[in-house]
């Protein structure tokens, strides 16, 4: 502790250099923590997928739908336990357009209030998802009301919705819009989840009956996807293949995959997101390591005579090495601290901005630095500081006093 003021004075000696090194380190840790948080959130989403559930979609793209008749045919495939239509509605809370002429479209979509919402065959769908815990009486009410909807606890808290509350949603998908205006819904059920048993399950989501969507749009719609529950998760590959073969020669060929693979594809349509994010993080960390190592080397090189003086005064080589390493670690702590705080600040800003709705659309409804990520970020910062300071500290350790005193 008694050497701490000495170390701090050296760090303040060239505050521009110290400041820029801390900023570089902070940027590195900021990126690391932000990327890790997003990745962990994605992984949690994927891990929450049940191995016994498959998703059947159109083979070409999610944009195309599947005939309603497919549901019964999939149900007949050996190994299939149950099937439910699950159609992505893409609705968001509408806002009034100011000064719009009467008779025209009086509303517009408010993307800042977007959340995942799906039209489903409610009974079989909820039977497949034990993670959604709906009180039985509320579930009965939900089934008994065509305009009824079941919402997750997070969503209910977000908008302070209670049982019996009414709201409107309008889809951005043209076939799912109706001429008379937005769809009206009544909150009939609010479901929870056991986060200990089902970690990663998001309750920022709403479900309503597919029948409502079908009836309200003139009975012309098909199914967006089918969620299929199978008897044996070990047979997922064989059952998927059997389902796809069933429609091989039809207009609407299907692609069936596990729920986890479906979510992964949905989240990372642009490729291997995890690999991309990790590669960026690694490249940035390595660059910062070089920058910091260079800075530390310069700082120590400038102080060769001072190091010789310290050794002459009786500071052992180990102690001099310790002082330099502590200085480097201090840079790491400062940079790491600012990086973690900066990342948390960014998450808070995003979670309170319209961008939150876009992330909620892919299941990332709550982003925040977990303690483990923060600690990992600090550990990386300390490692970078230590690695950057090691070579100059070793040089100081090995250098002979007489050689250093000769250097001007």
């Amino acid at each position: 502790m008694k050497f701490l003021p000495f170390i701090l004075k050296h760090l303040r000696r060239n505050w521009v250099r110290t400041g820029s090194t801390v900023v570089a380190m902070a940027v590195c840790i900021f990126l690391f923590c932000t990327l890790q948080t997003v990745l962990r959130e994605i992984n949690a989403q994927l891990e929450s997928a049940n191995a016994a559930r498959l998703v059947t979609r159109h083979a070409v793209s999610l944009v195309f739908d599947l005939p309603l008749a497919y549901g019964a045919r999939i149900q007949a495939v050996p190994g299939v336990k149950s099937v439910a239509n699950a159609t992505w509605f893409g609705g968001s809370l509408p806002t009034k357009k100011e000064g719009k002429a009467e008779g025209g479209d009086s509303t517009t979509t408010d993307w800042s209030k977007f959340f995942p919402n799906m039209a489903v065959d409610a009974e079989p769908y909820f039977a497949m998802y034990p993670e959604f815990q709906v009180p039985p009486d509320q579930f009965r009410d939900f089934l008994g009301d065509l305009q009824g909807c079941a919402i997750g606890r997070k969503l209910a808290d977000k908008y302070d919705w209670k049982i019996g509350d009414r709201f409107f949603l309008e889809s951005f998908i043209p076939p799912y819009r109706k001429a008379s205006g937005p769809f009206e819904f009544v909150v009939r059920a609010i479901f929870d989840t056991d986060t200990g048993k089902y970690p990663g399950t998001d309750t920022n989501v709403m479900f309503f009956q597919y029948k409502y969507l079908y009836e309200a749009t003139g009975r012309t719609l098909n199914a967006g996807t089918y969620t299929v529950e199978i008897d044996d998760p070990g047979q997922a590959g064989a059952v998927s293949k059997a389902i796809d073969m069933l429609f091989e020669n039809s207009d609407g060929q299907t692609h069936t995959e596990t729920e986890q693979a479906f979510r992964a594809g949905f989240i990372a349509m642009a490729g291997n997101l995890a690999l991309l994010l990790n590669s960026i993080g690694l490249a940035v960390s390595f660059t910062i390591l070089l920058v910091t190592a260079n800075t530390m080397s310069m700082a120590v090189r400038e102080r060769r005579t001072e190091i010789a003086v310290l050794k002459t005064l009786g500071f052992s080589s180990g102690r001099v090495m310790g002082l330099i390493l502590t200085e480097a670690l201090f840079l790491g702590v400062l940079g790491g601290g600012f990086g973690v705080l900066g990342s948390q600040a960014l998450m808070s800003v995003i979670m309170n901005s319209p961008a939150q709705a876009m992330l909620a659309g892919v299941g990332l409804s709550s982003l925040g630095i977990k303690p483990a990520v923060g600690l990992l970020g600090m550990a990386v910062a300390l490692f970078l500081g230590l690695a950057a300071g090691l070579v100059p500290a070793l040089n100081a350790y090995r250098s002979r006093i007489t050689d250093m005193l000769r250097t001007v």
Partner: protein
Amino acid sequence: MAMVDVQGVRKLYRRDSQEITVLDGIDLQVPEGEFVALMGPSGSGKTTLLNLIAGIDRPTSGQVIVAGTDVAQLSESALAGWRSRSIGFIFQFYNLIPVLSATENVELPLLLTSLAKKERRERALTALKVVGLADRAGHYPRQLSGGQEQRVAIARAIVADPKVLVADEPTGDLDSKSAEEILGLMETLNRDFKKTIVMVTHDPRAAQRAHTQKHLDKGVLKA
């Protein structure tokens, strides 16, 4: 027993395949409380001999016994500890740490002791008083003149109360007035505080302030 006892010391440097003899069979005894000036032309080995006495270099052969300790026998860390207790080093260019105040510079050797912060600070201020710079305690090296810087360096050298002071051309970077003040201060330390001083100098006037003058030439001590 001599405070500094150098016996048959040789120091060789190897440069590529060439071996250079810097000190060749040096014998030197400095009694306790003595003030010795080492003189000689550049390259004669004065500073090398001083470094051996101060324990910041090791002889190729021979013995260097200072304050009863055979310096060459100590490990690196033991030698560092011994230096902090037994040797006060005064450099030609003062070598103060620029980011530390005069008091903090003087306090540096005491960081290696178990003294409490308050006591360290008190001792540093006492040392600054001895060299006549108590009123500049909070000043940084850039705010001091050359002579004042050297006095702070002397305060740093004596703060741990070492038995031996070694000075490598302590007046070499000073004007004549400041040099006089520094030499007067060294005389005081020798006379009043009984410090044994070994000083390397080119300046005959500085050498005259010492009790004894020794001349080195091509690594050999002349009578």
